[in-house]
């Protein structure tokens, strides 16, 4: 009896571990990551849905928002064309990246804003250390209330060439950590560096933020990050998970069930069928036996 209980507990533990592994992950920016570096809080509070193929943006409405967070793979021409079509149709694309591969998309879009992949620090006005600058979003921009203060985490700077609207910059004490040692050295000069900028594409808008970490679980509650994320999301938010963001299998099932009424109906029918079979298995088996034995 005792041995059987132990085995049962062991089995339950295994099932839980496997199920947990299939539902949770510790990968950066994953909606299934409840740790500090995931975006589960944002994903569940704002109903962010994953999009698995960036070429197929037809399922999105023109008023929706596409979030591109810390991509770790380059965007192909087809994918860039898909994003461009979505933009020109009136969509909003929010690119949040510091040292990832978002520049491949930005170059493809001929964006006036690109990411300068050099660590950006701020000598004064920071959260705990200089690698986490606190910046103020320009109050007149669309995404700011009177004083929207964002707390960044190891951001990069933006390069702005051409017609783009800079919406947030560091203070005059921002500096590029060229040698990456987190100390202000002799050849590193302070200045104001842009971190958020937007540009118009047809009826749509491209918003580039040089730090994807403002939306991770560990940073979302810092400053006005959460409020800012709420402001930049228009319509239904979609997350591009085809460029390095991990979506674990059970989470995929969850999202599929959540958004597809047909699948929901099918699942209900499946459960009913299984339940029915379980309940009426004896009469069914008996009937099958009788049919086999003949009259």
């Amino acid at each position: 009896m005792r041995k059987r209980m132990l085995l049962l507990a062991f089995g339950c533990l295994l099932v839980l571990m496997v199920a947990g592994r299939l539902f949770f992950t510790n990968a950066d920016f994953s909606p299934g990551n409840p740790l500090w570096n995931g975006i589960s809080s944002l994903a569940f509070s704002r109903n962010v849905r994953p999009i698995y193929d960036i070429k197929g943006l037809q399922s999105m409405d023109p008023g929706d928002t596409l979030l591109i967070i810390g991509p770790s793979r380059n965007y192909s021409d087809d994918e860039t064309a898909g994003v461009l079509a979505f933009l020109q149709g009136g969509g909003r694309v929010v690119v949040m990246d510091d040292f990832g591969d978002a520049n491949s998309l930005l170059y493809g879009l001929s964006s006036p804003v690109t990411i300068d992949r050099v660590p950006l620090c701020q000598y004064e006005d920071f959260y705990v250390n200089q690698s986490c600058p606190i910046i103020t979003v320009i109050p007149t921009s669309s995404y700011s209330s009177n004083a929207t203060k964002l707390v960044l985490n190891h951001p990069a700077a933006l390069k702005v060439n051409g017609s783009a609207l800079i919406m947030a910059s560091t203070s005059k004490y921002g500096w590029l950590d060229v040698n990456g040692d987190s100390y202000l050295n002799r050849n590193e000069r302070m200045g104001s560096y842009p971190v958020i900028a937007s540009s118009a594409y047809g009826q749509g808008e491209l918003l580039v933020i040089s730090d994807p970490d403002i939306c991770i679980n560990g940073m979302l509650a810092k400053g006005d990050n959460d409020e800012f994320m709420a402001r930049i999301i228009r319509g239904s938010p979609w997350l591009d998970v085809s460029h390095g963001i991990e979506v674990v299998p059970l989470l995929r099932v969850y999202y599929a069930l959540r958004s597809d009424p047909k699948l929901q109906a099918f699942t209900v029918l499946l459960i009913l069928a299984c339940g029915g079979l379980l309940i009426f298995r004896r009469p069914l088996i008996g009937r099958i036996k009788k049919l086999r034995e003949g009259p």
Partner: protein
Amino acid sequence: MRCPVSPVAIRIFLYLVTILLGLSLLAGSQVMHEDPSLLVPSRVKPIDDQISTLVGGLAMSMDSISADIHAKNYTLAGQELSRFRQYSGNLKLLVSQLNISDRNYTELENSLGYIQSDMGALLEYAEQYNRSLSLYNGSLAGGDSANTSKYASELQADYIGIGSAYNRLYANATSTGEVLENLGVNTYRYRGAIDSLNEQLNQLVDTYGEVVPGERSPSLWLSASTGGVQGDTIRFKVALGDGNRSPISNARVDVFVNGSRIGTMMTGPNGNGSLDHAVAGDHPVANAVYVPADGTTPAAYSNEVALPANTKSPALTINIDRNEAQFGDIVNVFGDLKAINGAFLPGKTVDIFANGARAGSAVTHDDGSYSFSLMITPYFPAGQCVVQAAYQDDNGKSLSTGKPLNISAISAELTVLAPPIINRTDPLQVNGSLMASNGAPVEGAKILIYFDDMLAGISQTDRSGLYGLSIGMSKNALPGDHAIHSSFEPGEGKALLAASSGFHHISVAGENRPGGNGEWPFIAFAGAGILLAGAVLGVLLLATRLRGRKPAPSLQISHEVSRNRPVPDVPPEMCILSLETEIVPINADIYADCNRRAQRGIYFLAIKVAKFGGVRFMDSMTPREFLSIASRSLPAISSPLSIIVGSYEKSAYAPGNFEKAEVYLAIDCLKEIFVTLRIGLAETP
């Protein structure tokens, strides 16, 4: 102690854990970030504080060097100079990292370089002076007139060098202070050090006096406190010494201003004396004269000191660079402020007014001139206007003068922009611009913003003529098309005419698309799923219970069963068991020679019969417990039941053969129980 889990199971568990860990490996990531809860704090002082500390260090070093030179402690002065270089280097490095223009940085770098160079020269001259003075005194004492003259010449050169280095140091330190102030640095301590430097400069003549070779005439040095205007008291100080630099005490020194004697002072034991006097007049020059009372030594004439300009009745002029202007123009207003004798009055504040309203102020330069840029703002009155300059002196006397200026009104273009589609719950961000017809952006204009002809808010344009406002959407704002527009209403007779934007149409989306985010359908689905799962589980449990469960045989006898539990006084139900029917399968087992199974059947049948007799049987009971409870409830069946239970235990657990005779005996006992209970039941009313 033996592990209850088999080694195979442990091995499988370890394999699974390894696989899970393998699945958990992070994908290659280019992300750079830190867990905010584990950040290591940066310990940096604010830039302003650092600069302030360094500038304070510079000031302290300058002060110390000057004091050490004064005390003829050249080693310490040299060490202090090294410290100054260090402070200076750190300051330059810090400032170089700030976002300042190259020109400003070069200016600061040069200024600091000049100070270092001046202090180095001062130190060098002072040391040289000290050496020459020793040689001079030695030669003088030894009657070596040739060398006395030579060293006296060197001393004179060193003296001039000290004076000139000190003057340069003062000038460059002052200039550096201005550079720092232009950079926004707080120079309070630095200014204090410069003042101290000035004091020490005045006292330096006591330490490094002028030696005139070949003469034993006394020397007289005059200094005066600077700053001040008409009516201020100026303190004159003198230092009087003989030809050997020894102080002359108790001597009478006359002080003259512009050739007129203003007073006399007596020198103290150290040859110093002072005199306070309120000086009137512009640009006076002071000097002092010492005439020895005995007439044996020649008189001494001091250096000349220029006193600050004073004023009596100034004159103010005004000019403007155009007669007509419009919004966006900058009218240059300029003129000068002079004393009645034509002397310039620098550093005075002149207020500028337009049509009686104060537009700003200007400060006169060294030559008494002033200039002011008068901006024609959107709310500037159109038509004929008078631009005035006004000055009030320290005695409260006012001067003013004016020039006419014609302002012509022009039109402006106002635009409004907003997102084409917004959610009903989101704020509406409205932006736009106001540009004058001459292309100038309009700054500081108040813009009224209307939503469906209702005033929704007021915004103000910035330097680029842009304005923006976030409007909270009313819950009454129905989904659909709406119009927004804005207007600029400066009022009648202003430099900029009123303007109104066109209507901008926006579409307000309704509530979040039902099901767009899959929220309610999903909740409904999840709820239905949970209910369904609960229902299925309930049905399964019910089905299991209806099927009944067989007690698992066990040798363990629990003593925790509630033996004292009272038997409810409830009449047993009418027995509907038929012994003949129930015993059929048992007989079949006996016939098949399955005696043990037959005995088990008898035992379970006995339980069933006992339950009908009112015995509360539970599946968890052991046979002995059942016997105990049944005997207590129905003492009449105790004896036959004990035989059945004993046979059952033997059939279940005892090795070897189990005879049919025992089964038959058990059947007889069962019949006896059955009969007893039927009798009992029949006797129940």
